[in-house]
């Protein structure tokens, strides 16, 4: 008992777990709630405010004009459509590219080769987003390496534009898509595949009916990365997009150039809603637990 009496705080906390828990949580949750949740709510509220036409100052007069404009104006609709197109196409291409290499890594490579491949695929994740986008700017430049390779065939570098944006988005998020698909392939027990072939299924049938359905959650988990990361990206469009405008550009211009926070806030709701809907759709597959 003497020991206990010496540590009043510890024994008090031990007897009051709820207090102990909140003592642990007060700083991190306080930080996140104060900084982030307040900021997100404030963003919602700002979307309902307006900007004084003459002074450019934000005024606390309530209006739905920003939201109506963001969701109905043809400029915003066109850009939203284009951004969605980029995100969906990049995601589909990523999945197509990830499949063979993930399958090879998990099911065909020798253990040593597999280890090496895992390192080779995951290392570029660390190489820095900006550096990789810049690398493609050099590759695609008019006098760059791609132009040099294509010239003998009468071709040219596709240059900067929509195509380049999709290409770079595919490139940036590919390792994020390969990794969960590889993990999914690897976790399918061999015995299950053997059972299928014992029951008379040929390899093709086993792959289609047993293997593929089991890796769907991995594919979805990968798609969340590539989809939501390319949906909000505007740096790539700035670096290799030429004049291509995406949602992020518009939000950036509203804040940085036009100083119109309410309009920017309204536009920021577009990707939030799209990603929210996407997450809700895929949460049924159980993919969220694999992130």
């Amino acid at each position, binding site marked *: 008992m003497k020991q206990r009496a010496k540590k009043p*705080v*510890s024994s008090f906390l031990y007897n009051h777990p709820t207090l*102990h*828990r909140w003592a*642990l*949580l007060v700083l*991190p*949750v306080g*930080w*996140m*709630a104060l*900084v*982030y949740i307040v900021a997100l709510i*404030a*963003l919602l509220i*700002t979307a309902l405010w307006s900007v004084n036409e003459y002074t450019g100052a934000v005024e606390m007069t309530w209006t739905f004009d920003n939201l109506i404009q963001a969701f109905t104006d043809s400029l915003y609709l066109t850009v939203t459509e284009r951004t969605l197109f980029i995100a969906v196409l990049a995601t589909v291409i990523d999945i197509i*590219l*990830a499949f*063979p*290499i993930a*399958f*090879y*890594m998990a*099911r*065909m490579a020798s253990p040593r080769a597999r280890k090496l*491949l895992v390192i*080779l*695929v995951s290392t*570029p994740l*660390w190489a*820095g*987003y*900006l*550096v990789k986008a*810049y*690398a493609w700017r*050099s590759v695609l430049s008019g*006098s*760059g*390496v791609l132009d*040099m390779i294509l010239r003998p065939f009468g071709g040219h570098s596709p240059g900067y534009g929509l195509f380049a944006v999709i290409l770079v988005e595919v*490139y940036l998020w*590919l*390792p994020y898509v390969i990794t969960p698909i590889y993990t999914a392939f690897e976790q399918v027990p061999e015995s299950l595949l053997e059972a*299928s*072939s014992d029951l008379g299924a040929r*390899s093709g049938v086993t792959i289609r009916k047993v293997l593929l359905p089991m890796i769907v959650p991995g594919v979805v988990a990968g798609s969340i990365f590539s989809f*939501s990361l390319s949906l*909000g*990206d505007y*740096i790539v469009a700035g*670096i290799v997009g030429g004049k291509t405008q995406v949602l992020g550009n518009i939000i950036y211009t509203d*804040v*940085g150039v036009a100083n119109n*926070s309410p309009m920017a806030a309204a536009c*920021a709701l577009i*990707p*939030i809603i799209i*990603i929210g809907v996407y*997450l809700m759709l895929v949460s049924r597959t159980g993919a969220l637990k694999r992130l």
Partner: protein
Amino acid sequence: MELKKSTKVLFGIAAGIVLLFIYAPLAVVLINSVNGDATLAWPVRSVTFEWWGRAFHSAGLLSAALTSFGVAIVATIVSLILGTLCALALQRYDFFGKSAINMLVILPIALPGIVTGIALNNAFTTMVGIKLSMFTLIVAHVTFTIVTVYNNVFARLGQLGQHTEEASADLGAGVWTTFRLVTFPRIKSSLFAGALLAFALSFDEIVVTTFTAGQDITTLPIWIMNNMFRPHQAPVVSVVAVIMVVISLVPLWLSQRVTSDID
């Protein structure tokens, strides 16, 4: 499952092409950093180390690198404290609102950077009315780096169970002593891994940074962004890109060594 030899070869080739696609652009940047032609035209006709020399003598570049380093260090330290506290609470206790807190910590990396960026920018400038500065930048970075520490420590604590901590308390150790002598030594490797990720995330970040840093603050990514479009600076940017790729390999190598040493 029996697979034909030809199928294996086919998939091997496909895997090779994907790897080539992943590494070729990085190789191009490496070669460009010694490309003798200032417009970085291909084919490369001469080799020069002028850009490397210029990179190491650029005061702006050096100070940008130092700024990024400082921001990342402070953000990492704060994340270590907050992330560990949060992981301890969520792993050791079951309570109402647990999944909401879990979601709250993950949210900043689940939402696109631009949403986090504009939300914080708006909160700082319009709502609170403070000027963007080094302080607002670090606050913003911590918000999305907490999750890396939290995730790693949470997973590690789950593996460990809490019997040893209870034993420590039974033997009379206080909360702090138990953490210092029992919990901490065993979560060290996960703290290290989380810290590396937090550092890398902060060091490389550009979107949230653009929205939350004061006008006078130039981090390395912002320096790269500003100089990429200046024709005579492009070769130097290539040098910086190569250095950043090489630096990014250090934590990777370190984390593999440390995790294999400790566990």
